[in-house]
């Protein structure tokens, strides 16, 4: 399969603190990559660098062989290829569920309103939220907000989905409904990178698991290999603590 996303020597520092110390990764189209590791190890920063919410200090990102832009309008266009889902949902509280989804397609892709709403409704029904279309987000539970934020990203037809701890802020009984949506998406062929603490989930859906620690990929491999036979001592220590 063809490569869709690649990083070379990706580094990120905040002041004197070097959070990413050179990450090399190549992701194939349709691949599902889980990123695990201790807090503060750089997992989220790496994901945020991929869609340029953080500007890398050094190194390059290639999307379908093309260098990611560094500034200006190009960044806006680049970000449309990557959907992002955040730990804290970040749905827009001043808009209805439907408006949350149609906002960007109608404004930026000039999709006619009726068409955008039709697609939004079909996305909502896919995640079981069709009856909430006219509600404001304050009426939604955490799990519903996160499902909304996923379909909001999907409405821009991204080629890669990035999930930054999508279930960490959820009450336990809502984790499953969100993971199911992500699982369906991944199974449907969406290229997916997910930072997660849900080890069982990572084991089930991933083609590959990365263990990121101290700003580098310490170890990577198939989920079976990483979870059943980790080689690096850091990986072993981390897994013994979370499993």
């Amino acid at each position, binding site marked *: 399969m063809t490569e869709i996303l690649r990083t070379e020597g990706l580094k990120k520092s905040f002041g004197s603190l070097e959070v990413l110390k050179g990450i090399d990764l190549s992701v194939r189209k349709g691949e599902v990559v889980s990123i695990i590791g201790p807090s503060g190890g750089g997992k989220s920063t790496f994901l945020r660098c991929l869609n340029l919410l953080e500007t890398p200090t050094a190194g390059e990102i290639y999307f379908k062989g093309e260098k990611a832009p560094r500034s200006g309008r190009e960044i*806006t266009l680049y970000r449309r290829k990557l959907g992002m889902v*955040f730990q804290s949902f970040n749905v827009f509280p001043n808009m209805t569920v439907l408006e949350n989804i149609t906002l960007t397609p109608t404004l930026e892709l000039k999709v006619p309103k009726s068409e955008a709403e039709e697609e939004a409704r079909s996305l909502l029904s896919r995640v079981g939220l069709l009856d909430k279309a006219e509600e404001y987000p304050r009426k939604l539970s955490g799990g519903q907000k996160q499902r909304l934020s996923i379909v909001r990203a999907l409405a821009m037809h991204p080629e890669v989905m990035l999930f930054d701890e999508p279930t960490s802020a959820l009450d336990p009984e809502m984790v499953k409904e969100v993971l199911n949506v992500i699982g369906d998406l991944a199974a449907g062929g969406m290229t997916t990178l997910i930072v997660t603490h849900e080890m069982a989930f990572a084991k089930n859906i991933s083609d590959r698991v990365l263990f990121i620690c101290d700003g580098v990929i310490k170890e990577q491999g198939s989920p079976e290999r990483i979870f059943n036979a980790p080689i690096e001592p850091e990986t072993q220590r981390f897994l013994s603590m979370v499993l």
Partner: protein
Amino acid sequence: MKILAILKKYYMVFLKGLGGTLWISVLVVLAGTLLGILVALMHMGRIKPLRWITDAFVEVIRGTPVLLQLYFFWLILPKIIPVELTDTACILIALIVNASAYISEIIRAGIGAVDVGQWEAARSLGLSESNVMKRVILPQAVKNILPALGNEFISTVKGTSLASVFFVGELMTSYRTVQSATFLALQSLTIVGIIYFVLNFILSKLLRILERRLMVSD
């Protein structure tokens, strides 16, 4: 009972003054808000010289008395602007500039109070920077700042009274007109005071209703 007599004889003067206060206030609030948004955006923007200039502007306006600013604009504008300006125009410009500095600070605080996650989510979707601001951040900021903005509007209405120093036709000027015609200072002042109070009371109630409307989505 002298108050009633004054009202009977001079009510047109007070009404005219009220009209003056109203249109000056509306103009100052609208233009001051527009200019204030512009100042706030420049203040928070990426262009450093603009940031310094707006920062200095806000500090100077906040650090000097309004009355001084009115005199200053009244004196300097006719000198630097080729077209002839009336006193009223000079005073209007001064009030607008003054209001814009205060309003820009309120807007800046309101924008700063919007959760950083909202910026990130809007950007990650591929919204342009101007749409991120216009569609996602500003609507939420407006809700944050409405109470403070309401206060600013009310003090703008009261601030227009300073224009009477230059005999620009507004309520305080009406007071001075009636007072010099009747020598009944206390009575005319009471009438004008009541008009100001009622005006601002209605304004504050209207703002309260608007606030509640906007809270619908929370």
